[in-house]
C-alpha cells in the first residue's frame, strides 16, 4: 500500500499542494485529473522521489520515503511526460542502455519480450523513425525494465492515436490487475480515465473535471 499523508509543496510564493492525503492499494489504477498547473505533475514527482515535500510524509508498505530513498527508487517506475529516449539509438540500444544502468539485469531476450508485450515489435529500428505511439510505448517499456511495484505515469498517452492509446491503457490495467502493481497516472482524456481507473483524484480548485466525471458516474475524490 502507498500511503500519502498531509503533503505540502510550494514553488516560490505559489502553494502547489496543501495537506494532500490519500492511499492506494496494490493492484489499483488511480487517475489524477485537474487543470494545467494544478499540481498533478508535482505530486507525481513527489511520489517518484524526484523532489521532496516541505511537510507530510509518503510511505510504501513499511518503507518511509525520507529514510529509504534508495529502496523506494528500486520500486518506482516513472514515465515522464516528455518522451525520454535517445533519439539516435534503436529500440534495442535504448533498452540495453537503460538495462545496463538499471537496478536489475535482464537478458536481451527478456528486454525484447517486454517490448513485444507492449506491442512494440520494432527492435532494430532507429527511434527517430518510430511513430509517436511507438515512442510512447518505448518510453513506458524502459521504465518497466526493473519490474517496479509502483508505476507513475505523467500523461503517458498524450498526442498519440486511439489504437496506441488503448493498447497502452489495456497493458497498464493488466499490469495492475495481474501483477498487483500500483498504477497512478495523470491524463486529460476522460474516456481513458473512465475506462481504466479504479479511483480518480481531482487536484486543483476548478470543479470542471470533477463534475464531468461525476456526470459519467465516476466517484471523484478531491485532494
Amino acid at each position, binding site marked *: 500500500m502507498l500511503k500519502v499523508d498531509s503533503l505540502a509543496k510550494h514553488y516560490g510564493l505559489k502553494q502547489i499542494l496543501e495537506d494532500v492525503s490519500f492511499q492506494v492499494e496494490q493492484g489499483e489504477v488511480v487517475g489524477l485529473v485537474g487543470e494545467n498547473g494544478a499540481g498533478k505533475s508535482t505530486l507525481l514527482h513527489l511520489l*517518484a*522521489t*524526484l*523532489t*521532496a515535500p516541505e511537510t507530510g510524509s509518503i510511505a510504501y508498505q513499511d518503507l518511509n520515503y525520507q529514510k529509504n*530513498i*534508495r529502496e523506494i*527508487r528500486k520500486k*518506482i517506475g*516513472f514515465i*515522464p511526460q*516528455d*518522451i*525520454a*529516449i*535517445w533519439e*539516435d*539509438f534503436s529500440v534495442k*540500444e535504448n533498452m*540495453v*542502455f*537503460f538495462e*545496463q*544502468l*538499471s*537496478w536489475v539485469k535482464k537478458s536481451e531476450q527478456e528486454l525484447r519480450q517486454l517490448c513485444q508485450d507492449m506491442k512494440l515489435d520494432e527492435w532494430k529500428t532507429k527511434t527517430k523513425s518510430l511513430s509517436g505511439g511507438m515512442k510512447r510505448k518505448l518510453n513506458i517499456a*524502459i*521504465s518497466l525494465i526493473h519490474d517496479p511495484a509502483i508505476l507513475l505515469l505523467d500523461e503517458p498517452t498524450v498526442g498519440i492515436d486511439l489504437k496506441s492509446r488503448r493498447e497502452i491503457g489495456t497493458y497498464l490495467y493488466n499490469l495492475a490487475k495481474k501483477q498487483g502493481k500500483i498504477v497512478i497516472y495523470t491524463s486529460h482524456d476522460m474516456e481513458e480515465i473512465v475506462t481504466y481507473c479504479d479511483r480518480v483524484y481531482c487536484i486543483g480548485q476548478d470543479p470542471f473535471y470533477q463534475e464531468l466525471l461525476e456526470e459519467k458516474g465516476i466517484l471523484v475524490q478531491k485532494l
Partner: protein
Amino acid sequence: MKQIFSTRWLHWRKQWLSLIIWLLLPIIATLMVVTIANQWQEETVIPIGLVVEDDTTMANDLVQAIYDTELIRVHQMEREQALTELEQHELDSVFVIEQGYMDKIKTNDRKKVITAYVSDMSIAYTPVKEAIASYVQQDAGASRAAYTLDAMATHYNTKPTWTWNEIVATSNQIKQEEALLDTDFSFNQQAKQHQENKALSLWNVWGIWSVFAFLTTFFLFDWVIKEKQSAIKVRLSLLPISFKGYLVRNGLLYGGLLLLSDLINMSLLSLYTGQTIDRNQVLAIIVFRFTICLGAFLIAQCFQTSFYYYVSVLPLTLIMAVIGGAIIPIDGLPNKWAWISYFSPMQQLVKSDSLTVWSIILLVVFFIWYWGKGEKHA
C-alpha cells in the same frame, strides 16, 4: 563503471566520426600551424647581396658565417650585379668583403674591411649589418690577440714558438668553450639538444598544442549540457547511481579517452620535433588533462544551452592562450606580468609544472558541487 562504459560506448559508436575528428584535431592543427609557420619563416627571410673580393681563409669563413645566419638569404654575386639588384629593390642590402680583408684584420686595421650598400627601401639593414659586424669583430678580436702576443714577444725580445694561425685558432676555441652568451632554443626547458629544424624551435609546439587541446576538450564536454537538459535526466535520476554520479563517471571516461589521445599526440609530436619526452613532461600532460577536463565539466554545469557554451568557449580559449604564454611565448603578457600566467592552465603545460593552482581550485569547486544541494533528490 563497467556499465557506464557500456552505455557511453553506445553513444560513442553513434558519434565515432566526430569523436575521432575532435581527438585528432589538436595534433593535426598543431602540425599544420607549425608547418605553415616554418614555411612562412622560410619565405620571409631577408635577401642580401654578398660580394666577396678577398679569396682568403678568413674571408671564406666570414662568408660561411653569413650563410649560416638565420633569417637571411644570401645571394653571392659580383658588385655591379648586386648594386643593380639593390636599385631594383630585389635585395634588401649589399655587403662587400673588400680585397685584402684578411691582411687588414691581421694588421689590426679594421677600416673599410666591409662595405655596405643600402637603398631607401631597405628594412633590415641595421640588424643584418650588426650581425655581420659581430662576425668581423670576432675575427678582429682573435687577430688582435695574436697581434698583441707578437708585440709582447718582440718587446721582451723572445722568439715566439707559435704562428699567427695557431693563436687565432686557440683564441676561437677558448671563446667557444667559455662563451658568455650561449643561446639555444630548447623544447619545454629540456636539456640542450641538437635540433635539426631550427625554425620549428621558434614556436612553442606544446603551447600551440595546448590551445587546441583546450578547445577540443571544451567542445567534447558539451555532452554534459545535452544530458543535463534532456528529458532523459529524469530517468537517469532514478538509477542506482545518482545523476551527479552518472555525470562524474562519464566525465572520467571522457578524461581517460582524452588522456589516451594525449599520449598518442605526445608520441607523434615527439617524433615530429625529434625530441625525447621525459617523465616530468608526461606528468605535466596528465595534470593538464585533468585540469582542463575538470574545468570543462564544471563550466558546462553552468550552462543551460549548448549554443551559449560554445560561444563562451572561444574567447575563454583565446584568453587562456594569451595569458598562459601558449601562443605569444617571447614577448607576451606573462613576461610583463608574471602573476597573470597563473590564471591559465596552459602555462603549467608550457613550463612542465606538475602542480597548479587551477587543479586545486577546480577540485575544491568540484567537491562543493558534488556534495552540494540536489544530490539526494535529483
